[in-house]
């Protein structure tokens, strides 16, 4: 599913799409798209008219009718092609996924304790609740929950990410997906899906578009398009009778043929958007898949476009995952250098990112080289939940570092003093959004290490852009309110939820929703499930639990916390593409009228020639040019439908003016030029 594979598949995809364009000519497929159905019927009608004209019943010259019929068939094929090519990408993806879904032999066991009582069954026969064991090198046979063991798993078949991930029982990393492979150790898994309903099955159906239902917005747009089509059917039908009436009044033969009116009808009907509508929807889904996000419904993507509140986890989204030491603040008369020295010694064996950052800072600021534990005969005292401190013992010295209250207890227990000065420093660091680590040597406080949350580069700008678009960003963190407020201010988020619990997250979402906001959030843990179920757009991390995945309406295969922002962009882009191409399609009609109306009625009222502002050669060249343009514009716009219109993070008003300018005004102007050009070409090469 990597980009490279898709690039290679391009040629095959086009060939497959070309084939599908003809397969889709089946009436049943056509009936799903009313606007194109109209073109389809028109094509059949003109084809019949052509054969009738061969038999002597002439509506218009046989060559003219044939020409129109051929172009109409091409119009239908072009629309089919647009849809087929959009589906192509998904199909290629689905094929890759299918290869991962092949049946494997599963090792069913009665319970986690009896791992050696193995019954070999086919993975297709596994039911919900069955327990299987999987050893290194074997494929996980079905979706499930790890109930025993820990192992590294290669999930590249689904995520495209080749680095293995850890899966273990309990906690938030217990979900495994069928089709992935255990690389080391073993897992005991309780199956959580029925055959045929696994995550992989759902994923295949989604990317293939097989289970794609029309979204409410698509249905509403289709209603609009059908309404336009009905009007144009009536316009052309009444035009026929008007023409009979006017010709009779003028005492001449009726100048309009059924064929030319059918051509007018197809030109006027919103065929451009009609042909591309489903391609736009499929392409939107496919862009989301490319971002390694799997939406459970098309509706979820549209909702993403509407979202105006983003709940973002602090860690990983707003700040880099780890805090870093940024300052040594000595207290009680100690020097900075001594503090740095003690802090570095205490952190030498501390392999956490925070510990390493202390070592680095001491080296950078005071040129204190990292020493080796063995050299100084040191013993490392690791962090435990009970002491909440870590440190070293060497040569009878004891250095400890840890949270302020833990160190305070440690010092005062041994009769030491926890000074006012130290307390003030600790308070100040908290207020500034940092985390204080107090360092004590031999039960005497030396000073405080200032650990700072590092805000990711560019997030502030990103949030400002989002604000311009009317999207509020809210930081969710387990930190205390003081720290949270400081980080929120620095990162430029609009609001924050501190000391977040699953309950407070849920209440927070409900409150926003009651004010009429649409809320998006990311979650991974089981305890996120209620909030995920409540949010309008809920992205579950693939690394998360089964409960979280079921509660969400999207799954992020990369488990990246910044994905939400991309998802909103894709949602908006999808809706914008739909709106812009509708505008373009309808705006085109003006030029088509100016091409066809004079062509039809110049015979009746010569004065109407003044409306032929494009100076098209003849009546038939005008009709041909308009209808050829109508067919070609579909092909010309396929890339835009697939890529989506350009998206910028600007307020609604600006977006609207820009899109109106490009697709509204462009939609009026483009066909005038194009129709004139086609007219020059077809008369130039003597086609008409």
């Amino acid at each position, binding site marked *: 599913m990597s980009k490279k594979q898709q690039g290679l598949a391009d040629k095959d995809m086009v060939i497959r799409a070309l084939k599908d364009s003809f397969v889709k000519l089946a009436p049943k497929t056509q009936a799903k798209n009313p606007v194109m159905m109209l073109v389809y019927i028109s094509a059949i009608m003109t084809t019949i008219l052509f054969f009738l004209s061969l038999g002597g019943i002439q509506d218009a010259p046989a060559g003219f009718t044939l020409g129109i019929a051929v172009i109409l068939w091409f119009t239908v094929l072009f629309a089919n092609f647009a849809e087929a090519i959009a589906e192509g990408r998904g199909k290629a993806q689905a094929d890759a996924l299918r290869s991962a879904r092949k049946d494997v032999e599963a090792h069913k066991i009665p319970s986690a304790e009896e791992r050696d009582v193995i019954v070999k069954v086919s993975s297709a026969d596994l039911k919900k609740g069955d327990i299987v064991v999987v050893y290194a090198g074997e494929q996980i046979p079905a979706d499930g929950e790890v109930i025993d063991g820990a192992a590294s798993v290669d999930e590249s078949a689904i995520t495209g990410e080749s680095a293995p991930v850890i899966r273990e029982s309990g906690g938030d990393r217990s979900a495994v997906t069928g089709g992935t492979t255990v690389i080391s150790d073993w897992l005991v898994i309780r199956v959580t899906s029925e055959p045929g309903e696994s995550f992989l099955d759902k994923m295949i159906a989604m990317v293939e578009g097989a289970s794609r239902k029309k979204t*409410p917005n698509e249905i509403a747009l289709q209603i*609009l398009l059908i309404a336009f089509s009905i*009007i144009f059917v*009536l316009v052309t039908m009444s035009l026929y009778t008007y023409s009979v009436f006017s010709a009779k009044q003028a005492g001449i033969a009726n100048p309009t043929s059924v064929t030319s009116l059918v051509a007018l009808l197809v030109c006027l009907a919103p065929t451009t958007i009609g042909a591309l509508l489903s391609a736009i929807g499929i392409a939107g889904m496919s862009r989301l898949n490319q971002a390694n996000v799997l939406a459970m419904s098309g509706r979820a993507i549209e909702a993403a476009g509407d979202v105006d509140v983003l709940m973002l986890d602090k860690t990983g989204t707003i700040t880099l995952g780890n805090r870093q030491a940024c300052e040594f603040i000595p207290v009680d008369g100690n020097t900075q250098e001594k503090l740095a020295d003690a802090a570095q010694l205490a952190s030498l064996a501390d392999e956490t990112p925070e510990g390493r950052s202390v070592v680095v800072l001491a080296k950078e600021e005071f040129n204190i080289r990292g020493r080796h534990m063995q050299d100084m005969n040191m013993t490392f005292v690791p962090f435990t939940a009970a002491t909440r401190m870590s440190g070293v013992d060497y040569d009878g010295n004891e250095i400890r570092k840890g949270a302020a209250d833990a160190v305070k207890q440690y010092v005062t227990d041994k009769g030491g003093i926890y000074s006012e000065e130290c307390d003030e420093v600790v308070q100040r660091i908290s207020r500034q959004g940092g985390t204080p680590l107090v360092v004590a040597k031999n039960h005497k406080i030396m000073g405080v290490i200032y650990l700072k949350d590092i805000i990711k580069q560019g997030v502030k700008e990103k949030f400002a852009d989002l604000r311009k678009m009317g999207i509020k960003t809210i930081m969710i963190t387990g930190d205390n309110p003081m720290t949270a407020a400081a980080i929120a201010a620095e990162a430029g988020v609009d609001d924050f939820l501190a000391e977040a619990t699953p309950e407070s997250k849920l209440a927070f979402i409900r409150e926003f929703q009651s004010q009429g906001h649409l809320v998006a959030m990311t979650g991974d843990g089981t305890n996120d499930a209620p909030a995920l179920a409540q949010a309008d757009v809920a992205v579950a991390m693939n690394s998360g639990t089964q409960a979280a995945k079921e509660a969400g309406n999207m799954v992020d295969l990369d488990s990246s916390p910044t994905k939400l922002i991309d998802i909103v962009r894709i949602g908006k882009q999808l809706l914008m593409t739909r709106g812009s191409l*509708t505008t373009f399609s309808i705006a085109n009609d003006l030029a088509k009228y100016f091409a066809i109306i004079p062509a039809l009625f110049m015979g*009746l009222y010569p004065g109407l020639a003044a*409306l032929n502002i494009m100076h098209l050669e003849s009546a038939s060249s005008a009709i041909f040019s308009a209808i050829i343009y109508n067919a070609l514009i579909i092909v010309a716009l396929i890339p835009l439908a697939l890529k989506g219109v350009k998206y910028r993070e600007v307020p609604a008003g600006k977006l609207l003016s820009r899109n109106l300018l490009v697709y509204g005004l462009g939609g009026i102007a483009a066909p005038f030029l194009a129709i004139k050009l086609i007219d020059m070409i077809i008369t130039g090469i003597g086609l008409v």
Partner: protein
Amino acid sequence: MESILQYVLYLVILVALAIPLGGYIAKVMKGDKVFLSCICRPCERLIYKVLRVDEKEEMTWKKYALSTVLFSGIGLVIFFAIEMLQQILPLNPEKLPGLSWHLAFNTAASFVTNTNWQAYSGESALSYFTQATCLTVWNFVSAATGIAVLFVLIRGFVRKKADTLGSFWVDLTRTVVYILLPLSVVVTLVLVSQGVVQNLKPYETVSLVESFETEDGTEVTEQTVPMGPAASQIAIKQLGTNGGGFFGVNSAFPLENPTPLSNLFEMLSILLIPVSLCFTFGKAVKDKRQGYAIFVAMAIMLVAALGIIGYNEQQATPQLSAGGQVNLTTVDQAGGNMEGKETRFGIATSATWAAFTTAASNGSVNSMHDSYTPIGGMITMLQMQLGEVIFGGVGCGLYGMLAFAIMTVFIAGLMVGRTPEYLGKKIEPFEMKMAVLVCLATPVGILVGSGIAAVWPGVADSLNNPGAHGFAEMLYAYSSAGGNNGSAFAGFNANTPFLNVTIGLVMLFVRFLPMLATIAIAGSLAKKKTVATSAGTLSTCNGMFVFLLIFIVLLIGALSFLPALALGPIAEFFQMIG
């Protein structure tokens, strides 16, 4: 220059009167106390008591819709019966016979739908009883029905997670008692003061001051002068965008519209309520700018129409100026194309009336649109073809325009990357379906009606002119019905069974389909919660939205009618300029 001042003055007075009236109507809608309450409230109570209406009742949209349809449906049947039986009913001093069934149907449909298309000639076909019990009554209640449905739509936008939308009977009663009756009394008094007749006398015969000879040589010395309760009916025909004149030639007739002052009042009355309702809307949704935006969109289209009509009539035609037979200069006279216009009124007043009456779905005339220049006449027709949403009929004009606004936010909303919403309510497939029905009823009615008429044998005999203008006459008739307007290109003889029936059906179709669809939209909107607005929300009260709304209205009109107009007025125009 002087005429431009005249145009501006008309518009300024209109808006100055409409703003306070809009606020007043908003209060009436909510049932708040107003300065007329001391007089109107007892009447209102009495009506509820007599008709056993529960004032507190709240209807679902389905019940509201059913009440509306039943009310109009039963009204239509009674109306039809009275017309057929008027010779045996009282108040018929001229002993006028009952109407033919098709004319009776056409007339009943015409008045029940607030169209007031007159295939009959008022003074020579209908008795005073018919005029009073049918025409005048329906002038009031058809207007009130339109306003009631608008109230429902506004409630749909305002209410949150609600199932009910108010009571049809209460809305109807309040509209008549608090709005239409008081305004009619004022206008009637003004008109009577100007000399409009108001009596129940038989027609009078008077001798002419100057006798004249007809073409066959007989000398005419006497004239029959029609009488009747004209002033009161004229007041409501104007205020309620009805337009059905008491007399056949409508407000061009001196006894219906004698002086410049009566003309001014009648003209302002045409648009007064439709304009006020824009402000009512803004006030009721608690965002006046929303009302202004709709008003500005309508006003821009009206001014454009007025400008084009005025300009074309003032310029007249090359044929009139050829050889200098007609003096077209404006020195000491109106100049321009005076054919079919009253010399009492001149170009500016006639053009303004023509623009107002076709913008609002009024249809009363003080000049003959048939005689307008091709482009001038086309604009009157186009205003009706746009679905009567440039202010339009009382109530129905605004709810029609709001349906266009829904279509506009749909397309524009997508372009800013959000699923569409209007006034905080999400626009989903159901609303879209209904809005489409509202917006497309007029084009469908006109195209189908005129499309069939064009090939129906014998229709061509009704035309007054051959060629493109003849086609325009027929198209105008169906446009007038399709916009529930009621004005006519005078040359067209519409009293034939086919035309009476088809035009009657078109009027019913374009009145009730949008009405029911509007109530349905209101029902669905009321059930929704309101979405918060943000910088990412499409603004529906700025210049861009106004521009887009106008664009969508014109686009749908142009796409639907360009071919038809090309065969009528546009072809005529090119023939005219040679």
